[in-house]
């Protein structure tokens, strides 16, 4: 159970959120779905005297701008799955959302932006944001700024957020991308030890490959000579290409570093095969 006396805040404006964060710093925690934060507080692993619930902002979960799609901080996996157009345009995203461990109860509660802000290596959303070329709208006392994924996700449990800042939304180009998504867990109840996202613009272009849960932060794989002229990938070259680039594999109770290093290549290749049709 939560053992710190905690004050719950539900401001109705971004400025209201910032004010509380600025006053209390690390003693305040931002609450999206709470699916990471609250269990950790219950186990005494984190302690905060202030919780700031973003749901009071009343943001629209998914909105469309000029050539972009914006996910509010409070957008859940279920919100994504409910947007048929989005799922059709980003099938890898849809696959990831549908397969999140924890089933419907978790999908209805947990938020993608929250997962990126928590940034544990074995999460799926961070790598997906990288694959989508997402940016995060960081709001703080000094105002707002947009931070791209690679600059936002800095390390295990470490993002570019200062204690008095929060992420209000994430946005990415509204460019339909065909995709292949593969996730590997040791057992159904565990967390991923490796994810691979292979995507290509539907209208044509180079395939991109991002690995999640293999290293501390999502790993963009430079496909180099494995890319064919038409932007597809020579699947048989993927493993070697990946092997050379996995230099600091993550280790945790789900799997050690050696295991992640070994499986990264095959998992990536399977994502490519899923994208391009083939063995998988």
């Amino acid at each position: 159970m939560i053992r710190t006396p905690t004050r719950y805040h539900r401001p109705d404006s971004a400025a209201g959120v910032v004010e509380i964060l600025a006053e209390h710093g690390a003693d305040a925690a931002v609450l999206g779905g709470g699916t990471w934060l609250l269990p950790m507080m219950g186990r005494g692993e984190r302690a905060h005297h202030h919780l700031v619930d973003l749901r009071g902002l009343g943001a629209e979960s998914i909105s469309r701008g000029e050539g972009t799609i914006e996910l509010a901080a409070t957008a859940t996996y279920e919100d994504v799955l409910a947007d048929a157009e989005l799922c059709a345009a980003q099938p890898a995203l849809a696959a990831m959302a549908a397969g999140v461990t924890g089933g419907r109860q978790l999908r209805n509660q947990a938020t993608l932006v929250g997962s990126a802000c928590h940034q544990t290596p074995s999460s799926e959303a961070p790598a997906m944001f990288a694959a989508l070329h997402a940016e995060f709208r960081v709001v703080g006392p000094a105002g707002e700024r947009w931070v791209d994924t690679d600059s936002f996700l800095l390390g295990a449990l470490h993002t570019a957020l200062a204690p008095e800042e929060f992420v209000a939304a994430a946005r990415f180009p509204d460019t339909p991308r065909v995709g292949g998504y593969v996730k590997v867990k040791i057992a159904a109840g565990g967390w991923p030890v490796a994810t691979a996202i292979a995507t290509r613009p539907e209208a044509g272009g180079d395939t991109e490959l991002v690995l999640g849960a293999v290293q501390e932060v999502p790993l963009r794989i430079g496909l180099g000579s494995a890319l064919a002229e038409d932007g597809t990938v020579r699947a048989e070259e993927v493993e070697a290409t990946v092997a050379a680039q996995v230099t600091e594999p993550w280790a945790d109770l789900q799997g050690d570093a050696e295991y992640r290093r070994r499986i990264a290549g095959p998992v990536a290749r399977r994502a490519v095969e899923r994208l391009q049709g083939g063995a998988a």
Partner: protein
Amino acid sequence: MAPLNVEQAGPEADESVDLRRDGDVLLKGGGVYVDDVELPGTLHAAILRSPHPHAKIVSIDVAPALERPGVRCALSGAEALDLAAPLPHFFDPSIVGGKTAEFRVLAVDKVRWVGEPVAAVVAGSSADAEAALEAIEVVYEELPAAIEIDEALAEDAPVIFEEWGDNVLIDLPFAEGEADAELEKAPRTLTGEINLHRFQTAPMEPRGYLGHWQGHDRVTLYASTQNPHPLRTTLAGVLGLPETRVRVVAPRLGGGFGHKFNGYAEEPLVCILSKLSGAPVKWVETRADSLLIGAREYRHRFTIGFDDDGQVLAFRDRIWGNVGCLATWGGWSMTYPAGMTFPGPYRVKHYLVESMAVVTNKAPWNGARGYGKESACVALERMMDLIAAELGLDPAEVRRRNFIPAGEFPYWNSAKHLDSGNYEGALDQLLEMADYEEARERQREERADGKLVGVGLAFELTPEGGDFAGSYVRGFDTSTVRISPTGTATVLTGVTSPGTGNETSIAWLVARELGIDSAGVEVIQGDTDACPFGFGNFSSRSLSAGGGAAVLAARELRERIAKAAAVMLEREDPKDLIFAGGRIAGPDGDASIGFAEVCEEVFRRAYATPGIDEGRLEATHTDLPHNFQHIPDELGRMSAYPSFPYSAHLCVVEIDRELGLVDVRRYAYVDDCGTVISPRFVEGQVNGAIAMGLGGALWEQLPYDAAGQPLARHLKSYVTARAGDLPSFEAGRQVTPSPFTTLGTKGAGETGVGGAMASVTNAVNDALAPLGGHIHSLPLNGPNVLAAIAEAES
């Protein structure tokens, strides 16, 4: 120990047993577990646990905790010395020649495992109590720790109990014949090893206690425990109270499995805290606390001697169990069945098994379903497969050639008088049911496609009903049946249920004896004020012993009621009356009388109407399997286990070659637990045991880091099997009744854990065989299997 002359009491082929009573209550969340028990004014306890695996407690000051919000009292080990006597052992190692040690309710001078209780705080809420723990100041002087078996047995190992001189708790030999001499002579030998890791049973409901020290020095303890009566007895001693002033109530249990054997410090601790704070005090285990408790970690090194036909001539197995630290819990003793279960279902006359319990600074073991028998099963079944591989024989055939034949029961081997069985029949039934030939054919085809497909067999002999005279782990139990003037029956029994449904079966059995509807039979368990002294549930014996006793009591009452009915029906002979459908009738079928009507008459007219001579409809009986040998016979043989259910298992796996992940594609079994009272409950037990064994073999583990810290603290790091991980099991049944039990039952509940661990280990090794690979250390998870593949390919 001759077979019984008593009419055995199992259901006829056309009888069906009830649905689980209270099933609807459970599904609607209406079950009352210990955490649901609410007493006015209840306070909550939190426990400060050692952060070190091995350290001296230099000083401890709990006073600062008293300043924290909501805190009512705080207690250290030194302060508790005057409040609680040393804790009795669940099964003291010294009873069987092992070393022992004294334990108090809270550590005083030393801590010997991460998690060992050091101090306690009571507050108005558990949040306040937990928060107050950080105010307690403890100064530790860290000592070197021994975490793994090799560290504990090394020359310069830190000695965990100084007075012992070493870290060997006990070394138990099980031998027959001349193993060494026969191994010398054997045409063929091979050596092997199997390393089983630490994991546990992870009951859905962790344990908890609510202690209430009332006026006039009366104590009531609500406990999530499997053994309320022994707990009451030991509690009285620890608290210094007459046992008449102590009451233990075991509410519904959400899983026992041995995890809830009594002997924990928190049992008397909440009572003492209640006395100190003047209110009921509740403590419930967190999942992190619960995951501290260990089991199942063994290392086997064996040598087998056999002939060209695959007949085992002799073997040796050296077993080490990392039992964690010694405690007063019922776990270290699993090293006994781990050795005693050999040679399992096989006819081997020369063997030497040595089972050593090694203490380390891991948290202690408590009982875990299988109780060491699963360990012996994995080793034996690996032996069979290794022989088969060596000789190019089918593994099923090797087993057939070694089974004790069906005609030779009852059968003696070391420390076991096997009751009955048809091992070959069970295996053959399994192979036919599962179409073994077709599975092998399919395997050949898939191997040709480069797939890593494995077929693994296992046969598990599961001794049950263990009786350890000198302890409170006994093989007998007692039930009272009490019938009311309105013809309803209440069964009060000393056995309890871990959630298996045995109360439903007991009610059904009694109703059947009396010819009434089981809705008219109430079963009361777990309250020491109401129930006769009994030993609770363990070793799969509750229905056998407690149900058997209830049947005997019901029969005595039926005789008495029959006498009264005969008087009322004006019949000569009460013995030919038929009890059915709530009525009592003559065999000719004409005159009958209501069962309730007769019961009422007994109370209204006893001693007044000639022939109705007893005004009491209550009977108490004790029952036990008549197959114990506590005193060595003329050949020096003893047997502490009376019943021997068994099961045959087949597991088909496919290994993802690139990821090392094992997919269990098929699982089939044939189970024989003697007479079956409720097929539904028995099947549930076997399925659960298999799921537990597969989960442990493939995914669950309780690792420690080099510094002695336990790493699996929640259910995302201790990953149990989920529905999507396992196939539907194909189930078959064989029935060889026990000649020695009232019901013909042998006990259900544990068989399957070992069979599953063994069959999947054999299947994975079978899958790796074409690569020349093997894996002899569990768990068989992705990383370990991939490493085995990589090693084979290098």
